[in-house]
C-alpha cells in the first residue's frame, strides 16, 4: 500500500464514518485522490460505503485490523513510541480544560442554573474565545513533538488553528458546534493518539 492509503484508512479509523470531503479535509489530500484511494481500499475489503440518509465511508472489521497493524508498524519503525506516549501525557493534561471551554461556550450558569448560552453577551463570548486561543498556544508544543515524531500528526495543528481562525473571524460554530470544529478535530486527535499507541478507551 502507498502512504496515502494509510492516511485515508486511518482518517476513517479516527474520524469514524465520513464523507469523501471530510476525509480530504482530515488528510489534506484532494477529494479525487481520496475517492480513488477509497475505491482501492474498498476492493481490498478494508472500507465500505453505506448509502442512505447518513451515507458515508467507514472501516470494515478487516480494515480496523489492517489499520492497527500498519499504524503500529509506522510507529515502531520510526522509533516514535516514547515521543508519542510523552506527548499523549501532555495532551491528557490539557484535555479536561478543552472540554471545560466547549461547555463554557455552550452553557452558562445563571443564578446556579446551567442555561444554554444565547450568545447575547459579547464580552463573555470574547472571554471564552480568548481562553481557546490561550489553550491553542499551550498545545502548540505538543503538536511540535507529535509532528516531529510522525509527520502525519502535523495535520491536526493546521486543522485546529484553522478552526480557531474561522471562529475568531465570526464563524463561532467552529469552536464546538459542528463537524470540523475545534472540539471535533480535538476529539479526532484524542482518538488518533489512543489508536496509535494501541491504548483501549
Amino acid at each position, binding site marked *: 500500500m502507498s502512504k496515502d492509503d494509510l492516511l485515508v484508512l486511518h482518517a476513517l479509523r479516527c474520524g469514524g*464514518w465520513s464523507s469523501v470531503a471530510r476525509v480530504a479535509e482530515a488528510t489534506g489530500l484532494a477529494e479525487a485522490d481520496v475517492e480513488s484511494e477509497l475505491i482501492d481500499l474498498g476492493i481490498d475489503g478494508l472500507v465500505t460505503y453505506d448509502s442512505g440518509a447518513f451515507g458515508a465511508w467507514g472501516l470494515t472489521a478487516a480494515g480496523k485490523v489492517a489499520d492497527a497493524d500498519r499504524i503500529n508498524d509506522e510507529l515502531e519503525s520510526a522509533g516514535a513510541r516514547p515521543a508519542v506516549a510523552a506527548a499523549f501525557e501532555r495532551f491528557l493534561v490539557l484535555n479536561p480544560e478543552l*472540554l471545560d471551554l466547549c461547555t463554557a461556550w455552550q452553557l452558562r450558569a445563571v443564578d446556579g442554573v446551567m442555561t444554554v448560552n444565547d450568545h447575547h453577551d459579547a464580552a463573555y463570548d470574547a472571554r471564552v474565545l480568548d481562553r481557546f486561543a490561550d489553550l491553542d498556544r*499551550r498545545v502548540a508544543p505538543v503538536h511540535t513533538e507529535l509532528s516531529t515524531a510522525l509527520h502525519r500528526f502535523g495535520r491536526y495543528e493546521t486543522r485546529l488553528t484553522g478552526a480557531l481562525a474561522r471562529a475568531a473571524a465570526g464563524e463561532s460554530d467552529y469552536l464546538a458546534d459542528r463537524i470540523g470544529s475545534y472540539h471535533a478535530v480535538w476529539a479526532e486527535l484524542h482518538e488518533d493518539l489512543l489508536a496509535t499507541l494501541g491504548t483501549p478507551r
Partner: protein
Amino acid sequence: MRWIRPLSGDTDEPVEILGAKAQGLLVLRRLGLPVPSGFVITTDACREFLRAGRFPEGLADELVGAMAWLAAGTGRRFGGARDPLLVSVRSGASVSMPGMMDTILNLGLTSEAAAGFAAEDSRFAADLLSSAAELPDDANAQLTSAVETVFESWNSSRARTYRELNDIPHDLGTAVIVQAMVFGNRDEHSGTGVAFSRDPDTGENVPYGDVLFGHQGEDVVSGRTATHPLCELASREPTVWTGLVSALATVESHYRDACYVEFTFQSGELWLLQVRPGRFVGGAAVRVAVELADAEVITREEALLRVSPQHLSQVRTPHMTSADVIARGIGAGPGVTVGRIATTTEAAVRLSADGPVILVRPETSPHDMRGLAAATGIITARGGPASHAAVVARSMGKPAVVGVAELVVDSGSVRFGAQVIEAGSVVTIDGTSGEVARGAARATTNSTDAHLHRLLAWADDVTGDHSDREESRRLIAAQAALRLR
C-alpha cells in the same frame, strides 16, 4: 499560630481566610456533629507560598506542631508502626471551584505504617496500598509534598481558565484542610456517600443521595464502583442512617435551607466531611422555599428572595413524567425524547430509518458522530457535563443523559443495575433531570405547580398588583419592592 487554625468550635475567622469547606466543618463542630479531627492551613499561607515559591517562614514548624497535636488527640502516631495515623489533605477555597483542585488521601502510609495496618487487618491494609500514590517513605515528607501540591493546584491552567470564565480573582488562594482519615473501606460496616436533606430534583422533603458500601469516596469519582441510592443505608446500616437523618435536620435548621453533606461511616460510626447549602434550582428551589416558609423556618419575604426568575423558566421547561424511571445520570443536553435503544452507531443508523433512536454507549468518540447524527437522544455510562457526548449532543440540540454509573452496554442489550433492556426497546430520556424511563413517557410542561402558584400569590401580596402578568415579572416586581424595604 500564624498559618494554621485547629478545626475546633472556637475557631472563628472569615471565609476569605479559612475557605468555605473549613467553615462548613467548623459549623458542623459547633452543632456537635461528628467531624474527624484536623486543622486548616489558611489562604494567607497559600498566597505566600505562591508568591515566594516555598513555604512561608514558620509554616513547616507549625505543621509539625499541628500534627503532634492531632496525633495526641487521636491517640495514634503519624508514620508509626503501631496505631498509625493517616491524614487527608484537601483544598478549600473561599469560592466554589468544583473539581478544579486536588485532594490527597491516606498520607502517612509509610511501609512501617502499612505493616502496622497489616498486623491489624491484612485485607484492609492491601486495599489501602492498592490505591496508594508514589510517595516518599517518610510521613512528614509526604505531608509537606501534599500541602505543596494542593497549594500549587490553585494555579493549574485548568483552574486559571475556570476563574477567568467565572470572574473569580486569581489572587485568593486556597486553604488546605488536614484531617485524620476515616475509612469507608475499613470493613463491611463502612462506606461513604453524599446526601441532600431534600430531593434536589423535586424539592420533596426526603433525604436523597448516593452511598457506596465498603469503599472510599474516590472510588465513586473514578467510576470503579457503582453507587446505591441513599435509602439503602436505612436497612443495611440503621444506626448510621438514623444519625445521618438527624444530622441533616440539624444542619437544615442551622442554614435554614436544604443542605448537602458528604459523609463516611467507619465500622458503623458516622463522620461528616463537608456541608453546604443545597443550591437547588428550578422547581426544587421553588418548592423548598415555599415549604420552609410554611414551616415558618423562613418568612414569605425570604422565600420570594431565594427564588430567581431563572428558576421560574426552569420550572416551565418540559420534563418527563413517568412511574417507570430505571436510571438517573447527569442531564447534559436539555429536552425530553423517546426512542428505541441502539448500542452501536451502525445500529442507530439502521434503526433510525424506522423511527427515533436513542444511542446508548459507554462513552462516545468520533466513531459515534454518525450515530449521534442519526439518533434523537444519547445516554452514556461515563463522563460528566463536559464529556465528548455532552458537548456533541448540545451542539446538535439533542437531549443527553451522561454519567449513568450503573449502566453497562452489552452487544444486544443494556443493563441499568439489575434491569436488562433489549436493544430496540423504547425508552424515554429527560436531558434536564438526567432521568431514563422505560417505555414512552409523557413530556409535560408544568403549568399547575401548586408551590409556584402560592409563591407567586405571595409575590402579588407584596406588590399589591394582582393583574394577569408574566410569572417572572410578578416575581421580579416583588423582589424589587422587598429590596427597597
